[in-house]
């Protein structure tokens, strides 16, 4: 176990301690101060990797987990995962710092908040540093679950629950599709390690599962990264507290999909399908997000749509850049590699300015009590620092100098122009309209950025519409956005330092074949010359964007010409409603409330599946040649068992029945004694004693058996089911001996003493050879126990009111 593994586990372990720390320090200290140490130390730890990684090193550490299944906890750190790791830890620190001032320690359930946040952080770190696809998948789903908890943090609000459910349904649907794709990928590559898959890319490329695996994995990436049309969950997820939104939906979670696409580009990139799907979905998302952002009136919704569009931009760049792998190391591919570089660059830029904007919007919400643009205005004089920060963040997003967004936006235009001249993959008309669409999207981006700044901060203050007296936020709340805004400017002035240490190594993670060729030595400069088309595109964006912003009120009505009924949101709601209706209908058909009916279902099903299966495959075969002779004692015990079974059926009191059932169990224990299985006999005896006592406890509370119940009319259907069930059981038991397809595995366990140091083979099997089984069994047992406890205690605590949900 290396430090790298430990780093991934640290957030999980510290989440375990949160409740104890919380109880200890609650009244005096905001627990966030302690939690801040976790991401901060991770950030410092990761920071020291930068110089090694930029010199071309990478680290691979393995801890065997289930080596028999090639599932190992393998961590891999290269430029790509390092950039993501730094973002997760760095923005995580800032978000926790911000949340200390944002969330009141008196009113909020802070321990839940930080547990969820740490779970999420650990899952994200695990996701980006895992090399084994199954471990990656596990972390992927933990991010889905922990973000569900985070979005539903204010669970008493209906919108929060709705948004959380929506995000979970969509991302887990994608996650399951991705799992199928990953399984296909591991079958094709014959390995579970992404490293080795990259090396086997040419083999994978030729197989028939290539396209299905590609589509399924992209489904996972697109749902997570809120690409069109799965983007509908992101605006609803804004119901979460603002620090969460800043973390999940600008900096980390939605970028998991981007990470996956980038990580698997060496495997799938260079194929026409990957290029077309990734770049066109990205482009559509970019357009859809930016156009829809303009009409939003809620500031957070506006940011949500802008996030969607920016993620589309990054996705589109990754798609365009994947062409570089088509040529291998040829220098002509260097042109397309710019797109990959731009994607990484913009990803980091986006995290800085979007994180800053989210925090500022949170401040506005916190200080004014509203996020509705129609109620805001004129905050410039009242909140000068927030105003400055908003300017920096949104101008960077709009792609204006002197902010980092300008540089990556220019590179985006470069990449788009390069791609439009491409001759591979029959790009044709798409290449012709690609720069135009990208430009249109940029114009809309410009407009919503201006809306964000000027509708909020200029104009008249309308105190009548605000709940609170507006003033600037406390200094502590401003620290985090100020740091991020500082990065926005710093990156603009020294982009090549960042490029050397972070972006180029990260791009090499996406394009490993470029290592050492120098094709990726891209220099970023803010000024090229008057003649570059990128510059004129930017100038065009500013001119047309300003014009359109000034006339926004005249044409914004165009949006409402589109019928509001036909949206993916309504499709989703409709789907949920239909599913609920159908499942309720089906459930009402079979949930009768009578145990008798359920037993009929269970046994009918068993007879059909087991009996039918045996019958279909000619499983009923009897072989009595190896049977031991039946002794006198065994006949006696069987007769006793039959007698107790009949007593259960025909007794008039419950007490007699229960004792008879217990007697049946004790007789079975005698069988084990006869067959020289002391362990089983012991277990059977004690289990029987305890269950009998439990039954007595349960039945103590039931009313006495009444005569009329015992005279149930003879039912032909029940009789058939009972007889068939008994017959099938007997036949299966009898034919068990006739099937010896494989040699017995018991020989292996005979070595229990040399292998496990145990003379008791049964115990060695339980705790050593098959320890995973036992571990999960006691887990199931405990969960069942907790279930019983909750069911009974909740009812006692006045849960009766909840009945009648139907």
């Amino acid at each position, binding site marked *: 176990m290396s430090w790298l593994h430990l780093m991934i586990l640290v957030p999980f372990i510290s989440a375990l301690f949160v409740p104890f720390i919380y109880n200890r320090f609650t009244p005096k200290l905001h627990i966030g101060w302690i939690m801040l140490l976790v991401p901060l130390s991770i950030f410092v730890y990761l920071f020291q990797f930068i110089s090694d990684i930029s010199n071309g090193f990478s680290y691979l550490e393995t801890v065997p987990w289930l080596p028999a299944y090639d599932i190992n906890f393998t961590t891999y750190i290269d430029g790509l995962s390092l950039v993501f790791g730094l973002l997760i830890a760095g923005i995580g620190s800032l978000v926790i710092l911000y949340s200390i001032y944002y969330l009141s320690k008196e009113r909020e359930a802070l321990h839940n908040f930080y547990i969820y946040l740490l779970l999420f952080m650990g899952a994200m770190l695990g996701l980006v540093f895992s090399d084994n696809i199954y471990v990656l998948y596990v972390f992927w789903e933990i991010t889905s679950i922990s973000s569900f908890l985070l979005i539903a943090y204010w669970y008493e609000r209906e919108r929060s629950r709705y948004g959380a459910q929506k995000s979970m349904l969509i991302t887990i649907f994608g996650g399951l599709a991705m799992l199928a794709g990953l399984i296909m990928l591991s079958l094709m590559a014959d390995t579970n390690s992404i490293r080795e898959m990259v090396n086997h890319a040419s083999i994978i490329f030729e197989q028939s599962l290539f396209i299905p695996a590609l589509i399924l994995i992209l489904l996972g990436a697109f749902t997570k990264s809120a690409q069109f049309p799965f983007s509908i969950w992101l605006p609803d997820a804004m119901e979460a507290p603002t620090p969460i939104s800043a973390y999940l939906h600008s900096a980390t979670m939605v970028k998991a999909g981007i990470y996956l696409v980038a990580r698997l580009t060496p495997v799938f990139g260079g194929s026409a399908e990957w290029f077309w799907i990734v770049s066109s979905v990205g482009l559509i998302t970019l357009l859809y997000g930016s156009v829809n952002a303009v009409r939003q009136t809620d500031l957070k919704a506006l940011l949500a749509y802008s996030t969607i569009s920016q993620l589309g931009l990054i996705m589109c760049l990754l798609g365009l850049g994947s062409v570089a792998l088509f040529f291998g190391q040829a220098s002509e591919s260097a042109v397309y590699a710019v797109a990959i570089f731009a994607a990484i660059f913009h990803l980091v830029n986006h995290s800085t300015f979007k994180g800053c904007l989210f925090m500022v919007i949170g401040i506005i919400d916190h200080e004014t009590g509203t996020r509705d643009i129609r109620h805001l205005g004129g905050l410039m004089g009242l909140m000068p620092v927030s105003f400055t920060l908003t300017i920096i963040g949104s101008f960077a997003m709009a792609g204006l100098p002197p902010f980092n967004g300008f540089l990556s936006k220019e590179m985006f235009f470069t990449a788009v122009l390069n791609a439009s001249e491409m001759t591979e993959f029959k790009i044709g008309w798409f290449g012709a309209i690609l720069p135009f669409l990208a430009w249109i999207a940029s114009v809309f981006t410009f407009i919503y950025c201006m809306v964000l700044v000027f509708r909020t901060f200029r104009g008249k203050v309308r105190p009548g519409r605000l709940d609170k007296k507006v003033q600037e936020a406390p200094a502590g709340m401003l620290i985090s956005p100020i740091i991020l805004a500082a990065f926005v400017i710093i990156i603009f002035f020294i982009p090549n330092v960042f490029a050397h240490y972070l972006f180029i190594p990260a791009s090499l993670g996406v394009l490993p074949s470029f290592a050492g060729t120098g094709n990726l030595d891209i220099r970023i400069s803010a000024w090229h010359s008057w003649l570059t088309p990128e510059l004129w595109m930017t100038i065009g964006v500013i001119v047309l964007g300003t014009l359109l912003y000034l006339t926004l009120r005249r044409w914004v009505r165009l949006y409402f010409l589109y019928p509001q009924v036909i949206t993916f949101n309504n499709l989703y709601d409709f789907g949920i409603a239909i599913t609920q209706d159908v499942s309720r209908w089906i459930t009402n058909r079979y949930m009768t409330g009578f145990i008798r009916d359920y037993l009929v279902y269970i046994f009918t099903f068993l007879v059909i599946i087991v009996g039918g299966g045996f019958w279909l495959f000619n499983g009923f075969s009897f072989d009595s040649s190896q049977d031991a002779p039946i002794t006198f004692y065994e006949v006696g015990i069987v007769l006793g068992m039959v007698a107790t079974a009949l007593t259960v059926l025909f007794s008039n009191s419950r007490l007699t029945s229960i004792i008879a059932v217990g007697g049946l169990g004790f007789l079975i224990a005698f069988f084990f004694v006869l067959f020289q299985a002391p362990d089983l006999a012991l277990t059977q005896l004690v289990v029987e004693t*305890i269950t009998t006592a439990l039954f007595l406890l349960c039945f103590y509370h039931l009313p006495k058996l009444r005569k009329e119940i015992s005279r149930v009319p003879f039912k032909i259907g029940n009789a058939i089911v009972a007889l068939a069930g008994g017959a099938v059981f007997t036949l299966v038991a009898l034919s068990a001996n006739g099937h010896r397809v494989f040699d017995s595995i018991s020989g292996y366990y005979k070595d229990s003493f040399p292998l496990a140091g145990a*003379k008791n083979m049964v115990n060695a099997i339980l705790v050593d050879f098959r320890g995973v089984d036992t571990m999960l069994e006691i887990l199931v047992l405990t969960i069942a126990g907790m279930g*019983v406890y909750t069911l009974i205690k909740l009812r006692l605590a006045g849960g009766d009111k909840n009945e009648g949900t139907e």
Partner: protein
Amino acid sequence: MKEPNDVIIRSVTKVAVVIIFTFAINLFVSGHHQPGGGFIGGLAFTSAILLLFLTFDLETVRSKFPVDFKVVAASGVLIAVLTGAGSMILDMPFLTQAFGHIDLPVFGQTEIATAVLFDVGVALAVIGTGLTIIMSIGDDR
């Protein structure tokens, strides 16, 4: 439950419980080499406490035995998982068990196996779950 008035069962229980406890511990400790182990040891332990419940009042036993069995169950599972994960810290696959022999003053040559630690988890989970279920049902009125 009703106030029981059985002198015989009360007297027998007082003696029997001690014997069952001893037997349960013996079952658990000897489990590595003789019939027994965490599961059965835990169950025997549970049955001893169950006998107390049946003989004396639930409240009486609980006041003499103030343990939250939910916590016992949870810590049992936690112990089992952590001993399994412990091997990963030493760069071994999950749930790798090891054993060795040491010389103890009174017991002589004694075997120490990590599997026994794992078994403690099993026993605690069984005791905790069994008694949680029994107590919640017994408490229900």
